[in-house]
């Protein structure tokens, strides 16, 4: 009888658990695919508009924010001029919103998918990273519709530009950054459910601490408890992703090397730490649940 090489499971305590989990994940690629497919099939289950929602949802948010922050709170006045004489608060907002959605929804999605898979995992073996990555992939595809809408809107309003191709790497890197954060929180959220609640509160704060509904220079010279707000904002990793995507869409500029290096290292650091924390803490959490 033929036995596939990858079906031999040797448990050696000396083996690095991070590599072991990665091997298992690669052995079960088919499962990740099946789970991602299932997620995509069930996202818009029992809904009349179905996939239209992935377009309607960001557009509705954009409309509301444009009215509230643009018209009522006069965001329109502070918007800088972009490429080709563009001066539009909704377009300025939309670019940043896509990044924000990618980060927040993927990090929360990864965290909750772990919680949702634990029950099944405690009854039958499969690498739980498959369920987590499946949720990441399906979330990524659903959110991907948003970048199509974003680029489409820019093409209609401003016309074509080569810099629009750089939306994709910005979106992917922001997604990986969210994946890393989700992985870091996944196990902690099972150990103490408070983590999930705390994180949703933290996300609200983070939304306003990221220059999404306002440009960076709005905070020049403003202080909270002797901290310069614009300096504090730079400590927020998401600021750099938002600045990056605005460069390539609103301003149609190719970002400098330092900007590339910054978001690349932010997302890889997040992934490395996230994966490390996940491999370190998830087995114990699974067994105790």
């Amino acid at each position: 009888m033929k036995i596939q090489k990858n079906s031999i499971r040797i448990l050696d305590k000396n083996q690095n658990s991070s590599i072991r989990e990665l091997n298992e994940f690669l052995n079960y690629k088919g499962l990740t695919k099946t789970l991602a497919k299932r997620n995509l099939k069930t996202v818009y289950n029992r809904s009349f508009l179905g996939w239209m929602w992935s377009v309607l949802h960001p557009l509705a948010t954009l409309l509301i924010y444009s009215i509230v922050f643009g018209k009522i709170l006069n965001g329109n006045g502070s918007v800088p001029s972009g490429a080709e004489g563009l001066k539009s608060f909704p377009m300025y907002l939309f670019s940043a919103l896509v990044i924000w959605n990618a980060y927040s929804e993927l990090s929360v999605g990864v965290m909750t998918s772990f919680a949702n898979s634990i029950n099944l995992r405690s009854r039958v073996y499969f690498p739980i990273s498959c369920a987590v990555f499946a949720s990441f992939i399906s979330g990524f595809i659903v959110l991907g519709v948003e970048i199509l809408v974003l680029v489409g809107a820019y093409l209609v309003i401003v016309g074509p530009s080569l810099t629009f191709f750089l939306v994709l790497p910005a979106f992917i890197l922001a997604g990986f950054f969210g994946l890393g954060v989700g992985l870091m929180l996944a196990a902690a959220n099972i150990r103490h459910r408070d983590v999930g609640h705390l994180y949703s509160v933290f996300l609200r704060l983070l939304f306003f601490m990221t220059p999404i509904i306002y440009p960076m220079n709005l905070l020049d010279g403003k202080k909270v408890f002797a901290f310069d707000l614009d300096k504090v904002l730079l400590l927020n990793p998401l600021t750099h992703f938002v600045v990056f995507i605005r460069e390539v869409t609103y301003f149609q500029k190719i970002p400098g090397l330092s900007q590339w290096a910054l978001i690349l290292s932010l997302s890889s650091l997040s992934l490395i730490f996230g994966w490390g924390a996940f491999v370190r803490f998830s087995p114990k959490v699974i067994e105790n649940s």
Partner: protein
Amino acid sequence: MINEFDGYAIRLKNVSKNYEIENLSRGFLQSLSHRMYGKRSRIFQALSDISFDIKKGEMLGVIGPNGAGKSTLLKIIAGIVHPTSGNLIVEGRVASLLELGAGFHQELTGRENIYLNAAMLGISESEAKGSIDSIIQMADIGEFIDVPVEVYSTGMRARLGFAVAVQMRPDILLVDETIAVGDIAFYQRSLKQFEVMISNGATVVLVSHDLSLIEQRCNSALWIEGGRVVSSGAPQVVVQRYIDHYSGANPLGVSGSEENHGAGKLMVQSELGKGSAYCGGSCTFRVPGESIPKTVFKKVTFAFTTHHGSLPFVATFETELDRFQDAFSIRVRLLPLPPGQYSANVTFTGENGDCVVSNRILVYPHDRETEFSTMPVISFPIEVVHSGE
């Protein structure tokens, strides 16, 4: 590290498993303070220093009382939990039936769950498509295959779970019969499937409380208790030790207290030897003279009880007072019992209560084809032979 695993499906070496018991109702701040002040949670050792090997194509029966660590052992082999220490090698695709409908996602339909289970075994969707018809047929759930699993009955869930596990042709199948199987009739039909799988080279690990099943079908047995291996090896030997151990603590005679038992034991003899007989074969039960109570008794009852306490066979005969001063034998020409383990009891009913003489009898199927069946309580003609010692 154990390296040579040719011919072995599963090898465990010095495997131990500890669980940390934590009070989950404890709040965040409380647990934080416990951690800061170094209050450790209690450790429960579920398995300690377990070593054994299973060859490919064998069936291992695992026995032991509740809480012995049987389920933990299966979970370790399945990869659901990691051992705290020790090494293990598992070669091949492992399917497990550790709980009722274990690998099922409640919100997905039966069909989607089949694909999901296949993916968990590393089988692609197109490969799984080939066996989906045979799964549906074996599970016998008809149109319910396209309905979410959450509405399934217990029996349907058990049948589908079993059909998926068997039809995916895993190299290793782990079954916890004590909880995974709902429908007894289906399970007994499934036993045939185990043999088909084993003849195809698969390895089966079965946790069961059915000792006769383990004696008859397994190649080897493992008795664990308190997380340790008490005995392992040939199933007949292990089961015998297990029964002897527990019959000491809890006499097999279900009625009567210790002092009501006669001094001697009921002797069981057949062509198979002492203590066992063939289903449908002949068997002799001998009550030695010293076991017969010297008090006045009116009625003698001869009965078999299963280890659940039910009575599949009862024969009663009235007697005269002075008739059994000496040893006597009861001969049964055609033993009307399905294969299994029973207690044979002779009860002397007198004015001062009952006196029971009992012993264990193992009934074997006459050939491998004999079906397990549940027999109703029947009365059966027996022949009582008076013998003057």
